[in-house]
């Protein structure tokens, strides 16, 4: 069988992170443009898909691709939609193929409607260390508008169930949603904090072409225009930062807030240029050696970056995090990509970046106007 992520690069650096994709959901949310399909949780396709994942994991293991993993992330779709039995089978196969010790961060994405107490206990027993729960909002009206498969009460219940075994629990919340007031958003934040979660991701709604929501916006089905929503989202992003910082969370990336010690190591691997292996439909793999960086999906090369290009990408991804990049690293990049330091100087002059203790970090403006900042860095190579 074809080994996902097998060698095509010489002297390839070992994979540090593994992503497993479960492309199934109970129903499709109106804003979703991810690779997932709505099918019944009894559908045979699920069992076949898990079989296939396990075979690929075994093959990857035999090819010695799983020996250096620090993190695993099982995402979707909705991994919990496939049920406890299939999840257990998958995790069992995985734990026999790699060292799934407690030191390995192993995250599973959860949707409130499909989490059960038995599942929480089995997941914990099989090596999962972290749950990321797709709540989006604790406002039933807003949840209905998004076409979510759960209500606020189910979301609260899911967090409480998760807490039977886990303390490393993340909640996703969205802002800039049609019909969502500032008060509603703050209330959702507060509910999550009060429930004692240790990590919160805040995503402004992005309206993607081809989604039902895009059609609704085009037909002006809501009181707000897309411009309005963008404006509200900006305000809410600022409010979230203000509020969460008073509650002991710190923002460590554009969209990510954590209590001390609960930053997501897997996501940080994406942002710091660590090679990652993706298994499953439409999962992306990143391979890397000294000279180049390659991204692949379904055995197809998606992107090939030369060394200057990937160094610049590292700068860009680094600037998405509050710690930014070290001046030392920027100096190193500048030696190979002339103009890098000039770009930082320019970004400081225009207020996107500040220099603090030997690091370049994003400013408030750099957070909200990230695309201008990242674009300026990407155009270096």
């Amino acid at each position: 069988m074809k080994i996902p992520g097998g060698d095509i690069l010489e002297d390839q650096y070992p994979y540090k992170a593994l992503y497993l994709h479960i492309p199934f959901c109970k129903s499709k949310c109106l804003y979703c443009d991810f690779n997932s399909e709505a099918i019944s949780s009894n559908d045979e396709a699920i069992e076949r898909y898990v079989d296939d994942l396990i075979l690929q994991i075994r093959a990857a293991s035999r090819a010695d691709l799983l020996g250096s993993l620090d993190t695993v992330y099982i995402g979707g779709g909705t991994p919990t939609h496939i049920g406890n039995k299939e999840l257990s089978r998958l995790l069992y196969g995985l734990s026999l193929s790699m060292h799934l010790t407690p030191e390995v961060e192993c995250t599973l994405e959860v949707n409130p409607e499909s989490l059960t107490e038995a599942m929480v206990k089995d997941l914990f027993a099989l090596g999962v260390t972290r749950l990321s729960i797709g709540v989006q909002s604790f406002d039933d009206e807003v949840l209905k508008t998004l076409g979510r498969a759960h209500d606020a009460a189910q979301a609260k219940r899911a967090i409480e169930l998760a807490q039977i075994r886990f303390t490393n629990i993340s909640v996703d919340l969205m802002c800039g949603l049609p019909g969502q007031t500032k008060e509603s958003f703050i209330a959702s934040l507060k509910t999550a904090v009060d429930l004692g979660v240790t990590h919160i991701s805040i995503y402004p709604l992005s309206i993607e072409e081809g989604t039902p929501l895009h059609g609704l916006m085009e037909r002006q089905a809501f009181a707000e225009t897309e411009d309005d929503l963008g404006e509200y989202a900006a305000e809410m992003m600022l409010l979230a930062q203000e509020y969460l910082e008073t509650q002991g969370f710190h923002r460590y990336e554009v969209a990510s807030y954590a209590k001390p010690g609960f930053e997501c190591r897997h996501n940080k691997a994406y942002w710091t240029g660590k090679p990652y292996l993706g298994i499953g439909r439409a999962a992306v793999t990143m391979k890397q050696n000294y000279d180049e960086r390659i991204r692949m999906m379904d055995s197809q090369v998606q992107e090939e970056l030369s060394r200057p290009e990937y160094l610049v990408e590292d700068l860009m991804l680094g600037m998405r995090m509050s710690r930014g990049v070290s001046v030392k690293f920027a100096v190193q990049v500048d030696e190979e990509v002339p103009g890098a330091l000039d770009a930082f100087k320019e970004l400081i002059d225009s207020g996107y970046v500040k220099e603090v203790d030997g690091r370049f970090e994003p400013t408030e403006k750099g957070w909200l106007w990230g695309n201008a900042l990242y674009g300026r860095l990407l155009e270096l190579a």
Partner: protein
Amino acid sequence: MSIDPQYIRNFSIIAHIDHGKSTLSDRILELTETVSSRDMKEQVLDSMEIERERGITIKSQAVRVDYRAEDGQLYHFNLIDTPGHVDFTYEVSRSLAACEGAVLVVDATQGVEAQTVANAMMAMNANLEIIPLINKIDLPAADPERVRAEIEDVLAIPADDAILASGKTGEGIDDLLEAIVYNIPAPVGESDAPLRALIFDSYFDAYRGVVALVRVVDGSLRKGQEIRMMATNTTTLVEEAGVRKPTEVPVESLGVGEVGYLVTGLKDPAQVKVGDTITNAVGGCEEPLPGYRDVKPMVFTGLFPIDGDQYEPLKDALEKLSLNDPALIYEAETSHALGFGFRVGFLGLLHMEVIKERLEREFGLDLLATAPSVEYHVYKTNGEMISLHSPQDMPDAAEIDHIEEPYLKAKILIPPDYVGAVMDLTVARRGNFITMNYLSTTTVEMLWNIPLSELIMDYFDQLKSRTKGYASLDYDFDEYKTSKLVKLDILLAGKPIDALSFIVHNDKAYDRGRVLVEKLKGIIPRQMFEIPIQAAVGSRVLSRQTVRAMRKDVLAKCYGGDITRKRKLLEKQKQGKKRMKSIGSVEVPQEAFMAILKVDE
């Protein structure tokens, strides 16, 4: 030995645009085996890429065609292809002056149109024998009988013997070739008289210098002869004389009635002007051939490189193009908003578009063009007169006594149903109605006096759309007249943007300002801060709109697979930015500078 003039026929093919002139020329070349069908590119005579693409002729061409007529005699045809657009009227008139006859092509489905009339008039004024030809008879919608009647009614040209032809199928081309032999007179001239030859076009060849296309009227031209250009008073030695078939073939000499090319050895195109007369340097003729005039640009625009580094390449490109195009003039211009560029003068809008396209395509330049302007004559209170090509150079209102602007005589041909629509449009564009003639039951000719500045504001497109495409337009410079004109400024974020200023009639300033400001609001993307847009005359603000600020621009999700997507998105954004120009802190898309042209009232 020169050719016996009685076997020479010099003619042009004239037509309204799109009536199939070039295709017809191609068929003639093919049928006479001047060009083998293997080498036949569509429209051989239109050699420039843009000419072929747009199906228009910009430069004149001359081809020697040898034709064995039915009487067994070998004839030498000189087919002079002329530019088919009203911007190039002068060139057309000079090409016609090199001929004894003209084939007037009329589309069998469209009938007589404005440029058909204009071209026929020019041919008649040049005393040419006209052979009417009804083209495209292969089309299902062809109505040759109606068109025949139109030619007689509208143009007063007998059309009983009009040739029915199809450039596409080749039908009727034999008849045409015979008609050329029998109807077009042979050239007449004195071979012993001092040389008189007409320059009807010229171009610059990097290796040989200026090459002139000429028609010999009297005397003869040969290699090594010392000649003089009468208008520019330049003397030189003929390096080579020859004919184009269409590849160049050098000949011993060009005699009376012959058409050919001349390598002048001169390096400065300004010394070899279209319409000038060539004679012997010593013992030349007394009187030049009639009809010479200096060609003057009518329309002006600022051309600025989007990337400042392209200023020098733009300068080089303009220099190169102007070698072949004496009507193209340019001078350096500096804009606060757009940086260093050039104010460039053109014969008309088409000429402008063609040049801009060539600069971008052939020279790889990214250009921004400001709204076109005309040449205003500003009379100052101190008695001085300024020729104003750019709104930027407008003196203070206090210094101005009065301003004059160029007016055109415009001729519009339409079916009678559209008289009202044309009336409304043209009056709104400050046109003065002169008169109206029913040329036939289906065609009305309206004559107008209209400011050129209004005509270049999208008038032709408007005319076409309001008459469902039936109207055709022809115009000619008339005179300068006093108008109450003001300079309208556009301010972005409180700062006047010089490149967006334009000159407008006082009565229309308010409406144009209001519409333009609304247009700009739609064009200028939301940025990090609020952008007020204002239209003002002097310190008086006529209209104001605001582009709301955008509060954020960031994609939050950026995980494994999103990184590629994000890169692509940022790259796309960057491409969009490239087409923008930063003016102060405001990003302005290119189309903003042309928005003024599309202001419908």
